[in-house]
């Protein structure tokens, strides 16, 4: 990275997207609002008529919603990976990426929580989870850890942003009054004194360490929703690390997609440089290889031992109905990306962007394949139920409600990126050699 930019230039580049909104951006928001409206309509229908409007039935009792929930939890883990792990390892190229990662984390974990409520048969009783809480149930741990992770993620977005907020309070005077007021309040009277800096850096360090066990817990507990049952395909001891490693894959890919979009839309190619993409590409290859290793264990060992139910389940995936999705997600979403990412040319922004999209889509399909097909292989045969109980193809209502949560994630990221700088100004300035006491010198 060329380190010649002045603080002034960095600020101008970071403030530009906050000052001016382009037409494409407005169109994008309208599109998201449309998706939300459709989703709300379908959800109201679901509230009135029950979960029967979905394709879920007594055997496939969990479907699109739960698969999507697992996906969102997986995406949300990236905040912990990029911000915490890379920062604690003092990896400096990741600095401009941290804020994007945090924004994605917050949006994903928020809508993971919402998706769970959407899946409930009685959302009017959601408070029962607290009032009648039972420690034995992984759902209680899940609720607990998701909320904890959300709080820590918000703090991890906010607290390192305080110096930036102070800059915005002082320099960004040409935005609406409510926005100026918000920056003033959020900046917490930051003046950039030595004492404030030392408190800030200590707090960030504590949060970085704190978020790690919570992040591992959130996805391990999510995997235990499945692993603690007696079901074939779920009854696995490696589900925790299998899920966590898969989460890092989809999270890194999601950040790459967002990096590329922001780079183009916000013209910040001097901050999210080819170097950042190259390194993120390498990181994606690394986490994908780890995930592939877990996949090997998860599928090949039961294939070898040939237990009847396991075989029925695996045949369905390998050569049965689900084979196109299974091999598609495995080859296009994992193996092919690993091979391609070995080449430097493929780690350039545009090819990497397309590879990352394939990884994200493959990961989404993979979550569905983990959640849904196994339910059709219970210990006792499925008999005396209507044909619709034997298959699962999501209904339009279900898809619309899921679309709502997808749109919601994009909406939160878009809004956050429009009122806050998408890369940390002070940290980037420090990398460019701006001394700490000059960051707020004009007060």
């Amino acid at each position: 990275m060329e380190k010649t930019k002045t603080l002034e230039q960095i600020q101008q580049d970071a403030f530009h997207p906050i000052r001016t909104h382009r037409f494409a951006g407005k169109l994008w928001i309208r599109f998201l609002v449309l998706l939300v409206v459709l989703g709300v309509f379908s959800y109201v229908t679901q509230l009135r008529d029950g979960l029967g409007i979905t394709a879920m039935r007594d055997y496939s009792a969990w479907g699109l919603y739960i698969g999507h929930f697992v996906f969102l939890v997986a995406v949300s883990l990236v905040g912990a990976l990029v911000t915490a792990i890379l920062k604690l390892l003092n990896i400096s190229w990741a600095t401009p990426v941290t804020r994007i990662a945090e924004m994605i984390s917050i949006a994903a974990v928020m809508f993971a929580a919402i998706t769970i409520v959407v899946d409930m048969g009685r959302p009017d009783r959601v408070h029962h989870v607290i009032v009648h809480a039972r420690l034995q149930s992984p759902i209680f741990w899940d609720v607990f850890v998701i909320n904890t992770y959300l709080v820590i993620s918000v703090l991890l977005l906010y607290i390192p942003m305080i110096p930036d907020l102070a800059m915005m309070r002082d320099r960004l005077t040409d935005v609406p009054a409510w926005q100026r007021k918000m920056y003033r309040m959020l900046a917490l009277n930051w003046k950039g004194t030595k004492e404030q800096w030392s408190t800030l850096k200590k707090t960030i360090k504590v949060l970085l360490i704190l978020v790690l066990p919570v992040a591992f817990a959130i996805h391990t507990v999510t995997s235990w929703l499945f692993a603690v049952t007696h079901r074939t395909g779920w009854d696995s001891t490696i589900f925790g690390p299998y899920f966590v490693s898969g989460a890092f894959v989809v999270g890194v890919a999601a950040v790459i997609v967002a990096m590329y979009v922001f780079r183009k839309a916000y013209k910040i190619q001097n901050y999210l440089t080819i170097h950042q993409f190259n390194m993120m590409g390498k990181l994606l290859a690394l986490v994908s290889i780890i995930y592939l290793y877990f996949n090997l264990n998860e599928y090949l060992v039961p294939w070898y031992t040939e237990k009847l139910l396991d075989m029925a389940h695996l045949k369905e995936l390998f050569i049965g109905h689900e084979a196109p999705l299974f091999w598609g997600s495995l080859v296009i979403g994992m193996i092919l990306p690993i091979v391609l990412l070995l080449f430097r040319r493929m780690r350039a922004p545009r090819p990497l962007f397309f590879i990352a999209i394939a990884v994200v889509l493959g990961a989404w399909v993979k979550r569905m394949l983990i959640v849904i097909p196994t339910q059709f292989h219970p210990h006792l045969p499925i008999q005396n139920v209507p044909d619709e109980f034997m298959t699962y193809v999501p209904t339009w209502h279900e898809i619309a409600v899921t679309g709502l949560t997808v749109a919601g994630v994009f909406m939160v990221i878009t809004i956050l990126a429009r009122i806050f700088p998408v890369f940390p100004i002070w940290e980037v300035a420090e990398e460019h050699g701006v001394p700490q006491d000059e960051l707020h010198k004009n007060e």
Partner: protein
Amino acid sequence: MSKKERKSPEESPSRRAFLKKMGLAAGAVAMAGGGLGLARALAGDGKTGEQVRVMTTDGKVVAVDSSAIAERTASEMASEGREGLRGKKFVMVIDLSRCRNARKCMLACQDHHELRPEQHHINVLTMQDSPQTAPYHMPKPCFHCDNPPCTKVCPVDATYKRQDGIVLIDNERCIGCRFCIAGCPYSARVFHWHHPLKNSPEERARPYDVEANVPQRLGTITKCLFSADKVRLGELPSCVSACPNGVFYFGDVNEDAVTNGTTKQTVRFSELIRDNHGYTYFEDLGTLPQVFYLPPKNRVFPFEESSEETIEE
């Protein structure tokens, strides 16, 4: 709730003995006019003079003053439904050699618990363990496991195991997460994807009886309850008494006595299991099922694939 079936006068002595043993001999059990079901006797002096005919636990119809009758309130039903019957431990034995797929158990159950046609608390499965072995019919209720994986995963204690061994559901607490469906290895649980069968405002307004899980509610779980409401009255579960072929035995393992629902013979549970090589299903899962099967050997009739007609009737 439908009126309780009247005991036939020619009950065998063993049946009566069983009822006495099981029954809560708390006096009269009322069949109050509106059929709001379970009632209990109250000791009171303020008589109204109005006489009500009620049936006692041993099948006699007697007239009592209406002041002596009170309906069980919803909160009483709820707290009693959580505790269960003191000193009891219920088991079911299913004799596979006798099941000819009449499916009367399924219909009686659906009627009692107000289920939709596709909802089965008890399901008669056609089983064949391997290509060399003979096929057989297997009625499959909830196994009321002593180590139930379903209650373990419930986040709100909506499904729970009582001291008498029965696993129940509180559909006023259930949040509809369906974790218990995932947790149950025996596919015993059913969800209300659609509005329940009886869903008029009056039907919905009935006080909730947790022991029959009636009225059923949208977005909650239901499953086999061993007809806990009938068992409280000293009656046999609906499926057990509906069977025309003598498949089901039901009783109290503490007394080592189970009663056949068709013949009303009461036999020793331990002898029945020992002499016929009784077993439980997937006992290696560690769930400790409390429904025992007698193997389908020496069948009293040949196996027939049931036609749709036999299912309908």
